């Protein structure tokens, strides 16, 4: 059975990759999540999640050039695929459907 919905961390990481754009790699993705969503994520966890997403075909990755400020190590850049975008939309629809019709969450009362 294929998983249609993303977990909260998977969704956050995919959205962060989209927000960061072409320069999306471990550091910038973790920073984007922390800066925008206020959630601190370990970089190793970002890579582990992205590896899982890549296995499912939701992201692609490629290695950049080695740079001196990284001790001569290359960055691994990520990009969300078309399948990844569709998965984000599916998850968004499911969450929105759950959200609708709840009087407790209407306006700022919650």
């Amino acid at each position: 059975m294929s998983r249609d919905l993303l977990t909260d961390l998977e969704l956050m990481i995919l959205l962060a990759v989209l927000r960061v754009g072409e320069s999306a790699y471990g550091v910038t993705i973790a920073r984007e999540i922390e800066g925008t969503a206020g959630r601190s994520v370990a970089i190793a966890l970002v890579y582990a999640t992205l590896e899982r997403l890549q296995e499912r075909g939701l992201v692609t990755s490629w290695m950049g050039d080695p740079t001196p400020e990284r001790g001569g190590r290359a960055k691994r850049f990520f990009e969300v695929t078309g399948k990844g975008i569709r998965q984000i939309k599916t998850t968004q629809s499911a969450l929105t459907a759950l959200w609708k019709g709840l009087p407790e969450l209407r306006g700022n009362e919650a």
Partner: protein
Amino acid sequence: MRTPTRLPKTLLQTLAPGEPALVGDLDEEYRRGKSGFWYLGQVVVAIGVGAFKGIAAHPGRVVLTTAVGWAVMLLFFATIGDPLSFDTGYWLAIRFPDFEALVGRNVWMAAPYVPAWLCGFCLASAVVALSDRSRPASSLVAFIASVLVVMCGAAIMVRVYPHPVRVPHPLFYVIFTGLPISGGAGSSSSRS
């Protein structure tokens, strides 16, 4: 240019070598002002994540290396640790009778088992790490987790098991291997 200390980086490269870009990312953040404590925390998470990925990917290999670790630890304890600790305990009891009276016979006799247990545990951990060089963190985490489970099990067992265990007896070694400091283990064990 700030350079992170060598130990965390070596640990990361040795125990969780899966993601080559990760070391560069951590170095980059450290040079931008993150603390050494942050770096160490990231390394610990990376080792943990790598370990669980390895366990999920190769459960059979992890079970095998854990079994090897236990075999080494029990063998060490049965052949070297136990006789040496027992003799040392008696020697201490005779040499320092005042201390024995102060802390109690069980504790005084069990004290030499702690370094013996530590030696056996370190030796077994080294064998486990060496027997799985591609992802040593997975096997080490599984082995240490199994030791912790046995420790808890032994702690419960020595409280509820009413009969003394004759020595030599596999149960005695499992109890003492799992629970190095235990008056309970001492009281539920008797030498024949």
